[in-house]
Structure formats: structure tokens, C-alpha cells
């Protein structure tokens, strides 16, 4: 199956005051439709950097990122933004919902940016909030939601433009165990519904659901379990 996104010999080096730090070293990986990938490893091993590079929010120091066959490094900032907007969904550990917007408006925001017509936005937002079980909380602002509810809104927002790829960076990192399980169940459903999912996690419960588990250390993929 052709890859949605492919990393070819990707390295990412951060220049630091005390010397350069290699967050990724010669990493190659392909993510195809239907994939459910977990990325695990100790803190600072390059998991989030890999996610950022695959999600086109960061560019590798060397190597190539091909998104549906297009070399991402050659794209202008505006083109990369458009690519992220339409093809990639992000879920963050800290949710990063806009606090002045309601749950409904947070989910609507990427659609409005993508130019989705108002009527279509309404029905899509309604469907997404129902999908994550928060239709009744649509008019609530993030400050009126629990951590789990905020993360569910963030997932709905990530899905707003029907991305092919969902990237989640420690999605349960700020949640208690029970709430984390709800999020994991939601990610399972997303995968079952056809979205490729990549989850960076420290949580064995989350990692255990992935069909491919990548183990990272010192910026390299040092192991892969396929189930």
C-alpha cells in the first residue's frame, strides 16, 4: 500500500549552546493508510521530533520527508500549512484549545480556515462532537470542560478537515487512567474508521493498542513490533 508519509534517512540536529544535539539520526519509516503506530522510548529519544517531522511542522536537517510522494522540504511555508490543514490532524498533550472559543467553535476553526461552506461546517461539527460524545457540551468553553473532555474536543478538531493522518503526542499524558482509556478507545475507533494514526506515548495501555510499535533510543528506531 502506498505511504501517506515517508521519512527517508531523516536526521534532525538542533544547534545548542553546549553543542549540537541530534534528535533524529538516519530514521526511515513509512506510514500507510490503515496504519496504527505507537512510538515509545525514554524522554528525549526523539519521539516528538519524529512526530513533528512527519507532521510537516519541522523540517529535517538531512534526509527527505515525502507526503503522498511530494518532497515536503521543497514546499513553501504556506504550502506546508495547507498540507497540514487538509491532510494531517494533530492532538497535543496539553490540548491547546483556544480558551475564548466554545467546543463547537474550536472544532469549526480549522474548517473555516480550509474554506468549508457554513452549512457543511455545521453538519460536520455536529457529527464530530457526537462522534467524540460531546454534542451536549458544544457550547461550553474549555475552562468548563474536564481534561478528558478537552482532549476529546481536541481530537474532534484534529479530524475537522478529514485528515488522512492523525498524529497524537502523549494524548493521555495529562489525563487520569480512566479518562485516558476513553481517549484510547476513541483513537481505536478512528483507526477502525480508516484514519492512519501515529501515537507517541509513555503509556503502555496506549502503546498496547498500536498495530506497529516503534521503539526509539538516542534518535534512532531501535526496534519494531508488529502485531
Amino acid at each position, binding site marked *: 500500500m502506498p505511504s501517506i508519509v515517508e521519512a527517508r534517512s531523516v536526521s534532525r540536529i538542533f544547534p545548542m549552546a553546549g553543542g549540537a544535539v541530534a534528535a533524529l539520526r538516519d530514521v526511515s519509516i513509512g506510514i500507510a493508510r490503515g496504519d496504527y503506530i505507537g512510538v515509545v522510548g525514554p524522554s528525549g529519544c526523539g519521539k516528538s521530533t519524529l512526530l*513533528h517531522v512527519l507532521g510537516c511542522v519541522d523540517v529535517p536537517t538531512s534526509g527527505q520527508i515525502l507526503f503522498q510522494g511530494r518532497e515536503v522540504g521543497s514546499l513553501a511555508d504556506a504550502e506546508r500549512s495547507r*498540507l497540514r490543514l487538509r491532510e494531517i490532524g494533530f492532538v*497535543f498533550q496539553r490540548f491547546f484549545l483556544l*480558551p475564548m472559543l466554545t467546543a463547537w*467553535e474550536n472544532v469549526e*476553526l480549522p474548517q473555516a480556515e480550509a474554506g468549508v461552506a457554513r452549512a457543511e461546517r455545521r453538519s460536520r461539527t455536529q457529527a464530530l462532537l457526537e462522534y467524540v460524545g460531546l454534542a451536549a457540551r458544544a457550547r461550553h468553553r474549555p475552562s468548563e470542560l474536564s481534561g478528558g473532555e478537552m482532549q476529546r474536543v481536541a481530537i474532534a478538531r484534529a479530524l475537522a478537515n478529514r485528515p488522512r493522518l492523525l498524529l497524537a503526542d502523549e494524548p493521555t499524558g495529562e489525563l487520569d487512567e480512566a479518562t485516558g482509556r476513553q481517549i484510547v478507545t476513541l483513537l481505536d475507533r478512528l483507526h477502525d474508521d480508516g484514519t492512519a494514526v501515529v501515537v507517541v506515548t509513555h503509556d503502555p495501555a496506549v502503546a498496547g493498542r498500536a498495530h506497529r510499535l516503534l521503539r526509539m533510543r538516542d534518535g534512532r528506531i531501535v526496534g519494531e513490533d508488529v502485531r
Partner: protein
Amino acid sequence: MRSLRLAWLSLVRQPARAVLGILGIAAIGALLFDMLLLSRGLVLSFGELLQRSGFDVRVLASDAPPFTGPRLADASALAGRIARLPEVEAVLQLRVREAEIASFGGGGVAPDGPMDQAVEGVGRRRRVEFIGADPQVRSMWTIVEGEDLPDAAAEAGPLVVNPNLARRFALSPGSEVSLRGRCANSPEALPPVTFTVVGIAEFPFDSVTSTTIAGTLADAGRLCGDAGVDRAEMLLVRSTPRAGAPGAAAAIRALEPLLHVVTNEDLIERFSRVEFSYFRQISTVLATVTVFFGFLLIAVLLTVSVNQRLGEIAALRALGLSRSRVIAGVMWESAMLVGAGGLLALPLGALLSLWLDAILRSMPGLPAALHFFVFEPRAIVLHVALLAVAAVAAAAYPMRIVAVLPIAATLRREVVS
């Protein structure tokens, strides 16, 4: 969802910050607006004052300020020659004399009223300025009670007095007044001359304390005992509508090349360049300082606000919002803060200008109708333009922060922190 709405929501999310910002800009904007009103206020007001006199060209013997230089010789003949020019509609000779009120009859029209009431000892100021003018030419003052000077000379010299004098000495049309000239060419005390008040008039250049009287040219001569001397301080000329002031001035200069001929526009230009330039310089300096303060205030507010939201902004960029969209959001926030503050500044500035104008106008000797702060549409345009520049400049740094924000590094930092 437009950047405008997001910017609005960002502002209302922190109402205290927004209100403080708007109030700060309103206070700064009010000062800026006042400085703009002050920068040209005197010039505009002075121009209006000159226009109000009804004459647009002045003829003087030299370029010294009016009433301080030499007098025009053979003034009547000169006025006649100028009046015959086709570019000229009317010529008014002005002879200005100092005088003091020797005695007055109060109580109105009764000739058998309390005449010859001694003023000395009452403690009132008696000095007056006597303007001798040709009654056959429409005068520069405005009658508010009674009548203007009659065309034909009356037996008892007719006078119009300004409201200050009328109030101070209880004068009204029909009252009699004795004036004694205080003339430089008469070392001896001159005998008082008795006049009859025919009207009360407002004089355009009167200060709030001025005591001004107008009479005929002949009476100005009688007052100083120099009736045979045909000299005038100034000729006021009204041009024909067709020729206009420049045309009339050119014709007079051609006729009398040795005289100093100025139009109202010339005077305004000179005052603007010389006498009033201090106010313009002060207002320019203060306006610059206020705009700079406005810039600093908004720059600090926006920079703090953006720095507090770096994680959010990075997340929005990761979700695909374009760089221009998040930059526009910052610009809109700046525009809304400055726009709301700038609007509020207008009524505040207007009120403040009334107060400051009243303080400055209380300086002694200034024409009462002269204003320091004068509204003109140009002031609003400049106010808006300067605040817009401040808004854009203030947003520049926070916009740059947003523009160059490294998405991945910011997200990583937010999680670590």
C-alpha cells in the same frame, strides 16, 4: 472564522487588559488630538477673526505691526485714490487714539440724567481706545444694540461703545460721555470732548477686558486737537469679489509702490511662520511624544499577550492556520485597541481642549474671539493617520514574534514547561 473575530475574542478574553489598553490609548489620543487642534488653532482662529472684520487688504505706511509704525500721510486723498481702483469695493480709514473717560451720564437716554458724575475715586478703569473711522463705509464692528455711526456728522459726536464699556459705565444708546484724549503730540492736558452713545457694538479684536469706542474720523481729530492733520494708522480695503484680495493688493501696490500692502492671507502666513510658530513647534513635539507613548503602550500589551499565547499560536500553526492568518490576528488586536481608544479620545480631547482653551484665552490682552484649539476635519484625519501608524508600528514586534515562531520548538517547550 475570521482573524478579526479571533482578535476580538482574544481581547475580550482578558477584559482588564483590553480596558486598560483602550483607556491608555484614549488618554494619549486625547492629548494627541488636542495637540493637533493646537498646531493650527491660532492660525485658523486668527484668519477667521480677520475675515470677520469684513476687509481683506490692509494698507500701512511700513511693514511694522499695525498701530506701531508710522502713520499714512494724506490719508483721505490716499483712501480716495485707492477707492477709485476697479479692484476695490470700499476703503475704511482707521485713526486710533488713546483717551480716558472724563465723565459720563449713566441711566440711559434721559439728557437730564446723572451727568458729570466724577469717575475718579470710584476706582474704575477709565482708559479707552478710540477708533476713528469713516461712517460712510460699512464698519468692522457689529452693532448689538442701538445704531451705527450716522453717515452725516451729528452735532454731539456720535459714538459706538463695546459691551464692556457699556456695562462698566452703565452706558446705553443716548448716554453722554466726555472723553479726554491722551495724545503723544500734546504735552498739555486736553479739554474733554462730549459725545453721545448711539449704539453698542462688538469689535472683532477686543479682549475680554478691552474698552473700545468708535467715532468719526473728525472726532478722532477733535479728541487730540489735530483735526487738521490728515494721517491714518491704516486703511482697510475690501476687494471686489471679481478681483479678490490678491488682485486688489496688486492694484494698490502698483498705484502706491512705497506703501506696505498686505492681504489677510499674507498676514495669516506671516503669523503662522513667525508669531504662532512656537505653538506649532510645541504641539509637534508633544504630538510626537504622545504617539510614541501610544506605540509603547500597545507594543507592550501585545507583546505580553502574544508571549502568553505562544503554545496556542504554535498549535494553531501546527493545525494548518497560515502564518499570515496568525499575523493578521495580532494586527487586528492592535487595530481594535487603538481604534477603540482613538474613538474614545475624540470626545475626551474635545472636552480637554475646551478647558485648555479657556485657560489660555484668559491671558490678558488677547482678542476674546481668538481660540487656541480650533477644530478642523484635517485634525481628525491626522489623528486617525497617526494612531494608525502607531498601531501598525506597535504591532510590528509581536507580529514578528508570531511570524518567526518555530512551531515544533515552541510545542516542545510548552510541554516541558
